[in-house]
């Protein structure tokens, strides 16, 4: 196995492109090293992207923030601007593992690893975040929801990697929230999860909503019908119930050691409902 720590994005892309065998990007390694230790993966080449200048920065951009692919999750919570703008994304990242894990784990790694249960992903999708993909043919922008395609599989082409993720600007009276269900209180993997992002009008009526569900399908699900149930409402009980039901209906989970189909379908609706209330509260909609 070869290990490379290139100093530029194009060098990284060239290395990834040139390797005929299994080439992997190494960010925090909190998924990759675990998979290698267990014998599930035996890459021929590791390309560590942490030495590429600029990739470890959080920069303001057009009212939003661009997160470099090498920024460890812990830095999001320490960034007052990101905290204020996308509290749901930050709370999702702060659920990943533990303080120690967050010191290494990146948001881009969470996305590219393509686990259906990844915590940051539903929050990113609800936030309508955009990934900037760097590859042998240059840069392209891609909605985060299009990066994962199935358990452990992403849409990146040979030689491509995610260089950064843009958390966009947001109007006033808007906020997001993320909740997951785990049987314990930490160090566990989501059995179902929901990220909700809302925009309210002066009256507190919901004008825009994005709801994304995790661990209830082969990849993150954007629950458009469920979101529609909230538009024009003040998240009254009936609207929330309809939204929860739409989430449950959309969910297509599997039975496994972590939960049953029936359980996941019900709980994902409950989480979406509770997350929506939190987002509403954060957006000032309950005052």
């Amino acid at each position, binding site marked *: 196995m070869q290990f490379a720590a290139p100093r530029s994005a194009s060098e990284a892309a060239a290395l990834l492109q040139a390797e005929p065998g299994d080439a992997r990007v190494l960010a925090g390694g909190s998924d990759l090293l675990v998979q290698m230790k267990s014998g599930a993966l035996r890459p021929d080449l590791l390309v560590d992207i942490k030495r590429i200048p600029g990739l470890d920065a959080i920069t303001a951009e057009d009212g939003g923030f661009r997160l470099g692919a090498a920024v460890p999750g812990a830095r999001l919570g320490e960034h007052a601007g990101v905290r204020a703008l996308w509290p749901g994304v930050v709370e999702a990242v702060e659920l990943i593992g533990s303080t120690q894990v967050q010191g290494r784990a990146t948001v881009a790694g969470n996305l590219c690893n393509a686990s259906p249960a990844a915590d940051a992903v539903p929050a990113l999708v609800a936030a309508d975040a955009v990934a900037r993909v760097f590859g042998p043919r240059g840069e392209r922008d891609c909605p985060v929801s299009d990066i994962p395609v199935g358990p452990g599989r992403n849409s990146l082409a040979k030689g491509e990697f995610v260089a950064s993720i843009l958390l966009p600007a947001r109007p006033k009276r808007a906020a997001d929230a993320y909740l997951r269900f785990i*049987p314990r209180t930490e160090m566990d993997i989501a*059995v179902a999860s929901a990220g909700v992002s809302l925009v309210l009008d002066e009256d507190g009526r919901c004008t825009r909503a994005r709801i994304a569900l995790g661990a209830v399908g082969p990849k993150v699900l954007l629950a458009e019908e469920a979101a529609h149930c909230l538009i024009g409402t003040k998240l009254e009980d009936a609207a929330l119930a309809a939204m929860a039901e739409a989430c449950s209906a959309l969910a297509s989970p599997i039975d496994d050691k972590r*939960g*049953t189909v029936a*359980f996941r379908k019900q*709980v994902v609706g*409950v989480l979406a409902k509770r997350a929506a209330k939190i987002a509403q509260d954060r957006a000032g909609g309950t005052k």
Partner: protein
Amino acid sequence: MALDDRKRAFKVVGTRVPRPDGIDKVTGRALYGADMSAPGMLHGAILRSPHAHARIRAIDTSRAEALPGVKAVVTSADFCRAKHSFNQDALDHCMAREKALYDGHAVAAVAATSKSAARAALELIAVEYEVLPHVTEIEDALKPDAPVVQEDRRARNAPEGTHPNVTHVVSFGHGDLEAGFARADRVIERSFRTAATHQGYIEPHACLASVTPDGRGELWCCTQGHYYVRELCADFLGMDTSQLRVTASEIGGGFGGKTTVTIEPVALALSRKAGRPVKLVMSRDEVFRASGPTVSSWSDIKIGMTRDGRITAAQAMLRYQGGAFPCGTVELGAMSAFAAYDLEAVRADGINVMTNRPRQAAYRAPGAPMAIYAVESTVDELCQELGLDPLEVRLKNAARKGTKSAYGPTFDDIGLVATLEAAKAHPHYAAPLCPNQGRGLSCGFWFNFGGNTCVTLNLDADGTVGVTEGNPDIGGSRASISMMAAEELGIPYDKVRTIVADTASLGFNDVTDGSRVTFAVGLATIEAARDMIRKMCARVAKIWDIDEEAVIWEDGCARPAGPNAGDFEPMSIAEIAAIANKTGGPIAGHHEVNADGAGVSFGVHLVDVEVDPETGHTKILRYTVFQDAGKAVHPDYVEGQMQGGAVQGIGWALNEEYIYGEDGRLQNPGFLDYRIPVASDLPKIDTVILEIPNPGHPYGVRGVGETSIVPPLAALSNAVARAIGARLHELPMSPPRILQALKG
């Protein structure tokens, strides 16, 4: 050995002194199983069966042996036949012989100059398997057409037609059941299931073995009982026990799971073949797949009660599976099921069933938690149906001194009633509850054990004392033993140091299990100290030239007494030690005993939970443990045992389980999906120690290590039942199951 008659005011016993192993453990200096290395050492690795049940047709190790760096490959052919079938089962568990009996069963092992060479060699071993049908669940293993896990292991006392997978049939009880049930106002029958759970110790099994060409062996390993490891390994390698010296490392938890051998004989066989030391360390995956979980169970309970809460008759049928080997744990379940009750008519039957799972190992009060869960849940349901207070019902039926226990013996002084009274008087029992909250109560019981023990005390020239004992210290026993020695000798705690010696240094010591160490080693230490005191008094009598009987020991000094009282200045232990070389040489005290009189222990647990009605998530709000310790030598450690047992029981009740797939393979061999509680899942576990002296120990000590895991299962189940208004009859009460129960 009986309780001392004189009422004594303890000076050291009962205080909370610092633990002697504390600094090493918190600074990383303590040496655990994997921390020992030797010059020329090889690394071992074990090849494990991917099949739940398969005949091993052939094993070709030639390609592995040819790999550079590989120094030895062993299979079952490299071991002797064991002395008897129980030992043979222990060996077959370490290395499969004719069949691989479960997913993860060892089939071969290698030793190589590096870990990577060892791992690479495993892939070059060709095992020809004939895959056989498998069975992992109790109900399936009892079906007429179920695969037979091992031939010719059916219980000898089993009735005609019993399934060949049934290896034990037991029965306990007394009285006329039919008449008893007839007198009841309400009789209910319920079935319960509990999943297999793992002890979940932090430290995986690890050892370093070295066998020299002249046939002598050294073994360093993490174990609860190095003497027993020596007996088994010597048997499997055809060695005299005296030629194999076993040293126990510090131990990162065992809870019963390290009371037998797992990899140690394999490391020794590899070392013997390679002629070099070999280190073997299990991965967590291997620990889950191939080291003992506890039994799983399927039990039927029938209990009759009068309107005012008197139990008129009680009956249990317990079915346990303890993996692919005969397993007697069900006997302990049947004996303990109704131990908390004073019953006129009682019967507990049990069977053990073989399945294609790893060989169970003891887990804290082995066999009792699942039986008592079923009984205490049924009693609680009767209390709910009859509108009775569950604590009053326990008091009304409680076993006490003179009760003929359900398993035979008549109880001496026991602490159950006092423990129940303490719970009743505690503010927890009367605290208000909110919606979706429920309070659960359960009693628990464990026999406790004494056993073979051998202790030496050595007096050093400066008057300090070394205690040499032979039981690995899991719960702070070195501190407790030093405290008892200090108490007896009348010297400060920090003038005593206790070490756990290797197998060559003392006579046989039983395993650290059965909650026996503070009781049995403590008792032997007290006796050894008294032996040393007698010798010191004799030396002083010589110096003073008076009768030995005229010298007494008080506050760490020899004093003249009787006719000679006041004739001489007292001599301190330091003064006696300083001139020992002039009065006859070194002074030591010694005691060996097969201790009985361990004294049973009862506990009562109270728990409040809140269940989220939309997700089925259970939150523990408050937890209080009440337990009789006889005499709490070091109260911190007693509380630690009470809290630790409660926490493990909480995990068992709520989330822990071995999950097998259709393919018979374990699906959750890791701490991500085998969910032990994390710290943030738990409130502070409050403890109330009761001290009802054990008549069988000079200070009244009872074992406390195991009873505490018994009540949590039913306490949690009863609390959840009261919180959600529906009862689950199966553990774990995972959120999907609770949500299902809520839907009815």
